[in-house]
């Protein structure tokens, strides 16, 4: 018997009613640039490797890290992690502990002996890298990956540059750094240490391009009165000697003054504390808020008992003491001026850490390479110096002298050199719009404060084992909001009242505009802001 007419209907006949025609706005999936990624000097895709870490896929996470940065274990220790400062979760219940996750995964890579792929030298071109610090090594890594032959000339007896000679061992153990450097060299990079380059042009003849990554090792001399008999040393020199010739270290005495407010000052202060000084005081001319050293470094230094004396300049270093001028700082107008008052401090030795500059010696023979008024090598937007085929990067070209910036520069240099050798313009990365906090729907993230692991213990050159355990990595990585990047929570799929989102067996999602009425619930309930409404065409 036939069904009654009209009052009885087969199922799902409404599918022919395409309610998409009701729509004036429509949702779309977008990928936004998370603030961590946006701010990373090395250009790491932090959000992506956190996502893999959430899944416990540490190898895959590491592979993502080393796409941009061949030094995860190192960076996980020495990077000043601007990513965490801008992390959107910081506005909620504390930034994700990105740095520690990176370090922990970097350590897992070392422990498991994960290596970089060795690429044959298909390009038949050779590049000389002058300087085996983070920038030079990073450039070498990327150029090898591209199939170029690479040689590194290093003036010190070991590779590592400022990682080795600027960062104390309690922050970056030698074996960690050595493992990560070794991994790059094992890709087939020829290295010559202890080799000073004096004439770049001559050296460059055997190469298709040169990358100058010589760093900035020249200590800037403070203009002050150093009386004879006083015991002074530059912080850079102290740290280098400690690394290469510990026996040649001068005696610093019990009371040590460090002069400066940057990271090097803090490193030097904490180093001399470890060398046996009883009292270490940092003298700095502006206020504590103006210290350029990283907050965590300052914090740890204070915790270790280092004193920071602000608004003071050293006028005279005498034997056994320093004479100080007390300063006035007009923060608003950035005017620093001396007051009438003075002070003095007992000092068995004084360490200067007021800054470093480029050692211009090796550039003398190459007139085309010019030096800017800031005392760094001048380069064009593709990192090439005035000399054809000679590129420069790292501390030698810029003010932000951190290992992370150096790595970023090395990565970019490799890209520019590659483009140059192919006669092309380097490709430009188009950045997605910023994934801001207000795009997020935090209702889906219960309060779950970040887990810190204490860095403090005995004051020694030994690094305390503070990496996360595997589950801790997963847990902390899971705090990531995945800002602006779909993490497949299915909210859009589940909350659509019109079933206008299609979910495929592999979890991928697609908007079915046939039925989407444009209510915007999917966008409103997207936890990570990876959807947006747009005017319908």
């Amino acid at each position, binding site marked *: 018997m036939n069904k009654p007419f009209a009052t009885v209907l087969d199922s799902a006949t409404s599918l022919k009613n395409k309610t998409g025609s009701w729509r004036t706005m429509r949702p779309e999936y977008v990928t936004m640039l998370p603030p961590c990624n946006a701010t990373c000097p090395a250009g790491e895709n932090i959000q992506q490797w956190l996502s893999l870490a959430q899944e416990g896929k540490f190898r895959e996470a590491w592979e993502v890290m080393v796409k941009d940065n061949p030094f995860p274990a190192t960076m996980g220790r020495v990077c000043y992690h601007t990513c965490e400062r801008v992390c959107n979760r910081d506005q909620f219940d504390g930034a994700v502990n990105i740095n520690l996750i990176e370090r922990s995964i970097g350590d897992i890579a070392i422990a498991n002996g994960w290596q970089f792929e060795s690429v044959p030298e298909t390009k038949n071109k050779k590049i000389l890298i002058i300087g085996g610090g983070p920038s030079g090594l990073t450039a070498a890594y990327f150029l090898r990956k591209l199939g170029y032959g690479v040689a590194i000339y290093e003036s010190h007896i070991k590779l590592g540059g400022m990682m080795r000679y600027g960062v104390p061992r309690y922050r970056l153990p030698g074996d960690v750094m050595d493992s990560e450097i070794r991994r790059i060299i094992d890709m087939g990079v020829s290295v010559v240490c202890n080799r000073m380059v004096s004439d770049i042009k001559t050296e460059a003849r055997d190469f298709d391009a040169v990358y100058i990554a010589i760093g900035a090792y020249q200590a800037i001399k403070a203009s002050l009165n150093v009386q004879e008999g006083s015991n002074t040393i530059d912080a850079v020199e102290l740290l280098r000697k400690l690394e290469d010739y510990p026996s040649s270290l001068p005696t610093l005495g019990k009371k040590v003054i460090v002069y400066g407010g940057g990271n090097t000052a803090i490193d030097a202060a904490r180093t001399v504390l470890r060398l046996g000084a009883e009292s270490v005081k940092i003298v700095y001319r502006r206020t504590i808020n103006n210290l350029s050293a990283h907050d965590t470094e300052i914090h740890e230094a204070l915790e270790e008992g280092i004193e920071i004396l602000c608004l003071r300049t050293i006028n005279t270093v005498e034997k056994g003491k320093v004479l100080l001028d007390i300063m006035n700082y007009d923060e608003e107008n950035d005017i620093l001026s001396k007051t009438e008052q003075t002070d003095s401090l007992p000092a068995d030795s004084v360490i200067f850490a007021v800054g470093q500059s480029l050692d211009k010696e090796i550039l003398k023979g190459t007139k085309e390479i010019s030096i800017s008024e800031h005392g760094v090598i001048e380069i064009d937007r593709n990192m090439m110096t005035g000399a054809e085929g000679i590129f420069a990067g790292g501390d030698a070209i810029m003010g932000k002298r951190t290992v992370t910036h150096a790595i970023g520069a090395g990565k970019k240099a490799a890209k520019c050199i590659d483009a140059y050798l192919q006669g092309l313009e380097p490709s430009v990365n188009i950045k997605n719009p910023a994934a801001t906090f207000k795009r997020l729907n935090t209702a889906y993230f219960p309060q779950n404060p970040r887990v810190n692991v204490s860095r403090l213990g005995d004051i020694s050159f030994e690094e305390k084992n503070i990496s996360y355990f595997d589950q801790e990595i997963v847990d902390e990585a899971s705090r990531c909001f995945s800002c602006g990047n779909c993490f497949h929570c299915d909210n859009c*799929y589940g909350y659509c009242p019109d079933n206008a989102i299609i979910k495929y067996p592999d979890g991928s999602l697609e908007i079915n505009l046939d039925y989407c009425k444009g*209510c915007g*619930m999917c966008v409103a309930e997207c936890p990570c802001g990876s959807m947006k409404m747009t005017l319908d065409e």
Partner: protein
Amino acid sequence: MSHLTIGNRLEKNVTAQSMYDRSNSLTSGHRACQGCGEALAARCILDAAYIATDGKVAVINATGCLEVFSCVYPENSWQIPWLHSLFGNAPAVATGVAAAFKRQGKENVRVIAQGGDGALADIGMGCLSGMFDRNDDVLCVCYDNQAYMNTGVQRSGATPAFSRTATTLPTGDYLGNDVQTGKNLPKIAMAHGIPYVATASVSNIHDLEKKVAKAIHLKGARYLHVHVPCPLGWGYPTSETIKVARLAVQCGLFPLFEAERGKVIKSTPINAPLKVEEYLKGQRRFAHLFGKNASSDALITLQNIADDNIREYALVGDPNE
């Protein structure tokens, strides 16, 4: 990553709604308004029931928005057996269906009666109460959008205090629906001593699905009262249905709980209750309580209702426990 989202890429099928091959009991092409909370809740509930029963579920629908937008000849949006009879008789029709299934030895086919607050709190309360009274083997689902939406937003027995509807328009001293009126349908259901009564919100699919999965297999009369915001009737942007539902729960005005045989056995805690204003201020139906002619007394009254709920259902857990 979050466990509050509908799905989770690391764990398959955490909810029925996250399944790529979910049944879509209410499928596309229906004529619900943009952002309809009821359409969403209906699909969620029936998909959950579908999974829990391996597809053995039939639905009796009262007259109302849900019926009108889902099944107008020649377009039917349902993918499960579905019957619409009248506005006020869905629970009784469901009783008949359940009796017939029993007679046919098909008691494994579970019967759901569903309707809005008008259909169940008002015109159909007799049939609903009768179904409870006889402890018929029916799960009744009330989609509570707190007014007669189908006819143009008139007051129902479930309309909250101070709410503006087409028949409670605030004018002069009159601030909208009177206080101390209305019916608490979950409590009325509980007073029948039926095996299971629960409240749920469309903003908490995990909780909703769990309650459906539990209720669907219990024998006897069961009642599920689901809070489903209506963008048209309540006056908020269509994108904010879930948000509004969530705020109602988080301020305590819509407590989530379960009761068995007339006694509350469990409630869903809200750890840091929001002020009722957070919930009310985004809705045009309460707009007269804010702005120039704001009534702090009304807000205090509503806050007291929320606070009473928080106490009565122990929504803020004892920190010592």
